[in-house]
Every structure is written in structure tokens, then in C-alpha cells.
């Protein structure tokens, strides 16, 4: 199996949506029946969902795994409605069947035994970090976790209770001050870094990630960022989902679906990303 381009186990199958819960004006929790993904998914990995049985909309949509329930054989995603595909999912009735591929991508590298973990979430980027915090909260893989969650407004601080519940410390921030502290989540990162930490994990808008990476580099604390890009295949075949990196000095493009979605922030070419190569 060494031939398979180090393919980890991934599945393609037709599964049922078993629960749909609206958890904010634009947010839904979707639960799917899928023992394989439930058993295999790691924090940071994603599933690639075909939103229509026919060829329109054409491409699959990627969503991070929010949590798994191995006993029940299910997994959940937290979804923000932004366009056509997410709209269709937001309206899907339980028992509707969907084709999924997953779990895909590399997932977060768990922190070493030393030091605390800082989890920085922006908006819908909270999804994979809730999964990560849940794992860090379990006795066998316990690490002290400090959560930071920023969003535009109270409406977008979605699932903050779930997030804070699995963090040892927790700070929430909104840009408009409609809930919790006012400001950008990155405004609240410096004091956390000053206290020291073993590792920072971040997921959210590209500009937020760039700022997190900058601060972590200054503080010399390792940082892992989960990146987004428009996707075709989801498995590394089409080269459609790349971001610019500079691993070992050389500039190149790496695939979010296969080499990521989690990248060591040090190798991401944040300058190029600031120029606008993230999905719109």
C-alpha cells in the first residue's frame, strides 16, 4: 500500500443525514450516520460532501469534522450558509442521503507533552478547533487548552458554549461588541503568547491566520493553521486547491486537501496570501 501516495484510509459512500439543528441565523449542525468516518476522523480532517445527487451544483463541498461519536457511528459538521450548496444542505430533511468522501486531509499534529495549547478560532473556523479541544480534553490525550474565539457579532459566535466547555480557559471576542469582549481575536492573543505556550492552533479567515502566524513567529511558539481553498477532487489529484508555501526556502504551491488543510504556519507564504488567493 506504500504505492498509494501515503493515502490514509478514506471512504466514499452514501450516508444519511440523521439530524439537522439550526444553531444561529446562518448556522446549522448536521449529523450524519457514518461509522467509518466516526471511527477514523482526526481533528482538522474534513469530509467532502456532494450536495446534490445530480450534477448541479457540480462540485463537492468540504466541511471540517466538528465531532465524532464512535459509539453511535455518527459525525457532525457545523455549517455556515453562504451560497448555493450550503443553502441546499441547510434545507435538507433528515434521512436525506448524501455522497461523502472522508475523512480527508492531514489533521492537526497533537502537541508534545510540554506546554499548554492555545486554540484561536475565527467564525466558522471554530469547527475543527472544537474537535481538537475535545480530544485535548480527554484524559488519555489531555493538554491544558486556552481557547480564543472571535467573530463578527454575537450571531457568529456559534457553538461558543461547546467550545468553552472543552477548554480550560476561554475568551470570546466580537468585532461589533454585540457579545463578550469587543475587538479582533488577534488583539487578545499577545497576552496569551506572553504567558508562553507549547503550541498554537488556528482556523479562520486568511487575514486572521496571517496575523496569528506573525505573532507566533515573534513569540517563537509553533503554530499550526488550518487553511481554506476552493476544492475540486479533495484527494490531491487536481491541484486545484493550492496555497503558496516556502518549505525549506523554496517557494511552491501545496495542496490544501492533501498536504493540508493544516499547515505549519512557518512554511505558509503569508505575504502572497494577503494578496488575495483565498476563496471568495
Amino acid at each position, binding site marked *: 500500500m506504500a*504505492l*498509494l*501516495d501515503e*493515502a490514509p*484510509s*478514506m*471512504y*466514499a459512500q452514501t450516508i444519511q443525514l440523521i439530524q439537522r439543528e439550526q444553531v444561529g441565523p446562518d448556522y446549522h449542525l448536521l449529523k450524519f450516520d457514518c461509522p467509518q468516518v466516526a471511527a477514523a476522523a482526526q481533528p482538522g480532517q474534513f469530509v467532502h460532501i*456532494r450536495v446534490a445527487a445530480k*450534477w*448541479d*451544483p*457540480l*462540485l*463537492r463541498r468540504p466541511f471540517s469534522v466538528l465531532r465524532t461519536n464512535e459509539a453511535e457511528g455518527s459525525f457532525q459538521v457545523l455549517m455556515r450558509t453562504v451560497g448555493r450548496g450550503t443553502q441546499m444542505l441547510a434545507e435538507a430533511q433528515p434521512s436525506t442521503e448524501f*455522497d461523502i*468522501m472522508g475523512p480527508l486531509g492531514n489533521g492537526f499534529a497533537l502537541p508534545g507533552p510540554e506546554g499548554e495549547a492555545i486554540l484561536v478560532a475565527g467564525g466558522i473556523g471554530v469547527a475543527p478547533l472544537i474537535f481538537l479541544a475535545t480530544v485535548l480534553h480527554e484524559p488519555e490525550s489531555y493538554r491544558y487548552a486556552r481557547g480564543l474565539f472571535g467573530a463578527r457579532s454575537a450571531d457568529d459566535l456559534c457553538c461558543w458554549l461547546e467550545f468553552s466547555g472543552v477548554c480550560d480557559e476561554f475568551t470570546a471576542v466580537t468585532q461589533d461588541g454585540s457579545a463578550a469582549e469587543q475587538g479582533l481575536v488577534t488583539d487578545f492573543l499577545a497576552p496569551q503568547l506572553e504567558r508562553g505556550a507549547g503550541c498554537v492552533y488556528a482556523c479562520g479567515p486568511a487575514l486572521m491566520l496571517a496575523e496569528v502566524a506573525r505573532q507566533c513567529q515573534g513569540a517563537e511558539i509553533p503554530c499550526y493553521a488550518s487553511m481554506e*481553498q*476552493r*476544492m*475540486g*477532487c*479533495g*484527494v*490531491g*489529484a*487536481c*491541484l*486545484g*486547491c*493550492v*496555497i*503558496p508555501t516556502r518549505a525549506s526556502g523554496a*517557494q*511552491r*504551491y501545496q495542496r490544501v486537501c*492533501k498536504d493540508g488543510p493544516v499547515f505549519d504556519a512557518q512554511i505558509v507564504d503569508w505575504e*502572497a496570501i494577503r494578496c*488575495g*488567493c*483565498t*476563496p*471568495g
Partner: protein
Amino acid sequence: MAAPQVDLSVQLAGLTLANPVLVASGTFGYGTEYGELVDVGRLGGLCTKAVTLHPRAGNPPPRICETSAGMLNAIGLQNPGVEVFISEKMPALRELGVPIIVNIAGESVADYVALAQRLSDCADIAALELNLSCPNVKRGGMQFGIDDELTERVVAAVREVTRLPLIAKLSPNVTDIVGIAEAARDGGADALSLINTLLAMSIDIDRRQPMLANVTGGLSGPAIRPVAVRMVWEVTQAVDLPIIGMGGITSAADALQFIMAGATAVAVGTANFVEPDVAGRIINDLEDFCQQAGVARVADLIGAAHSSSGTEGLQ
């Protein structure tokens, strides 16, 4: 009553393919990316992502976006270069047990010649597919495929240096596809691949800028199928070379349109992204179709729609 056996094999450029369903270049990586999701061994053949003489980083992102029944891509031929291809990708490709068609792209005639020479030394390559039609690179690429003299010149030059079957992959972005196809034939091509993507673009109206960093990209998927079928039809009538038809194939019915228009084989592209095992499903359904239609050999359907003539109109 046991269903009669259907012969799915086809002959193409001196190759015998177990069935006429290939996967298209750039949509199936180097054969291993889909892991166990696909039984690659069942494919009629596999066209690799384009290989160039030197490594290429490709275009900046965003590189793809969705459109109505289609997608745009501007990958820009990202690949590790022919040496790494031979040392790192060919070993796994070889193991797959299906004909491997290596798609090559150059910026000059000399590039194509050098690539063909280098790959001719490499075992287990079934054929070369000359990508004369990539719309997403500044030099080379489509520039060859839209000019009949250049097309003939590059095919002839490659013909001189290799005994591998040569498949010329043409661009649909031309006024006269038949002229280009004739040029490829005159240059010595053994077969034609029709079609590559249509040059296209999309605009993000919120950001007021193109969806792709490269501005334009290639349109693929079901949207382009009728253009592709038309080109296969036209070329079949004028040029006596086998054709690999492609463009928006998602089902056996789609594949049969190409075959009945005159294609000897077909390639599935964009649909792989949506349904990794789509080629396997198409192979099964082709067999069923033949069985139900009482067709003993799928090859008997090649060009089947040409026999009947159109209805005569008034005036």
C-alpha cells in the same frame, strides 16, 4: 437465459484497450491519489497529469471555480518535471496494470522532442499524449493547438524521435477544428484527443475581480459536452484517425454520444472529482447498454449516428 458476453475492447493507435473508458489528463493525478476509492485496474487506460521538461510551480491560487454545470481551472501545468516523474511517479503507475498514456506539454518544439526522447527510454508507457491545448500557460500550450502549421510541425518533430503511439490533444478554441486535426494527422499522429477545455472566465462581483488569479481558465464539465460531441463528429467525417472523445462525460449515455459521434474511446475528466469511481460505473453501464441493445462489440457502435442522414427541410 444467460446474458450474452459483450466485447468491450477497442483498438486505438496500435493499442488494445480492455474497454473504451479512460480517465483524462489532469483529473486523475498520477493514478494513486484516489487510493482505494477506485479500482484503477478496471480502467481502459489512464492519462497522466501533464509532464514538462523541468518542474513547474503552476499558477497562483485561486486556480478553480465552479460554473453552471462546469468548472474553470487554471492549474498552469504544476508538475515535478520529467525526471522526477520517471523516478517517482512511474513506478506506482506501472503497478496499476492499465495502459499509461503520458500527457506531455512544452513551450517549444524542442521541449516536446526532448520529452518524447526521454520518455521513450522509459518502460511501460503505452502512448504519449501531446498536450497542444493547455489554455493556462503563457508560453506554449494552446498556442500550438490553434495554429495548424505549428501543430503539424510539433507532431512531426516528435514523430521522428519516438516509436510510441502519438496522440495529439487538440484545443477546442479554434475556428476550424478539422484543419487542426488534419495538420496533426499530416504530422504523423496515430490518434487524436478531443477536446481540451474551452477558454473562459468568471468574475467575483463582490470583489469586482476575476475568480481566478490567472484571470482566464479552462471550462470543463457537462456544460461543454455538446461542443465536444460536435467536434468529434466533424473530425470523424474528415480525418481517418481514431479519436479519444472527452468533455463533460458523466454517464454511459454521455460516453455513447461520443462513441456514436465517432470516438473510438472516451475519457472522463471533471466527473472524477465528483464521483471518483465514475469510470467504473460507466464501464458497467456500457456493458448493460450493449447487452440490452443486442450489440456484441462496443466497437460496432463507433460512428453509429453517422449512418442515418438528416431530415430534408423545406425550401
